[in-house]
């Protein structure tokens, strides 16, 4: 499978955010839990809008949550 070039720190950010669950993050970012699972497994590159939404949930700059390899 083609490797995704956009890496993310969602799992670490969830852990830092008082061990937020995938379901809680999914609800706050208005996506399904399966999308969060795929993101954490680095198997799905989100749209720019979703990336901003997730960064906003954790209150961090976009580049702290997502990096381009």
């Amino acid at each position, binding site marked *: 499978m083609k490797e995704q070039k956009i890496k993310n720190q969602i799992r670490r950010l969830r852990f830092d955010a008082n061990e937020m669950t995938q379901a809680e993050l999914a609800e706050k970012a208005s996506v*399904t*839990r*399966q999308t969060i699972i*795929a993101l954490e497994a680095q198997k799905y590159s989100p749209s720019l809008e979703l990336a901003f939404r997730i960064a906003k949930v954790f209150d961090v700059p976009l580049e702290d949550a997502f990096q381009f390899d």
Partner: protein
Amino acid sequence: MQFLNNYSNRELNIWAELILDILVSFYFFPKIFSLIIDGQLYGDVLVGIIANTIIIAIIYSIFVFGAINALTKKEEKDERDYIYELKSYRISNIIYQVSIFILISQIVVFNPINPKPLTDFTAPMIAMLLLIITLLSSTGKSLTQLFNYRKNI
């Protein structure tokens, strides 16, 4: 219940659609084709088979889709769902176009020049072939969606 936890509501619904397509295929088409081959496809017989198929589909839908939606939480579609849906429609469209092209080629080009054609393309036969193409296209759509969902888990 572990099975239900591993699959989202959407995936289970797609599985249910796929199984319904297969059930309909195994019930409907063998009956229709045997009637076409025997030359006994009359209106009342056809109506009976279609009515039975619709009743089976309705009963299946009530129980299976009802159970899925009662046991799992329904979720709003997100961007990933829409992307996979578009990919599956693309595959479905390719299957549809290629199948129609093959069917037209058979009818217009090969059938008249072939002394022993595989079948006579009568109106009921063409209607059934179009139904099969529709079903194939729908199955291709469901399989593509399931493949994409499982690939990324």
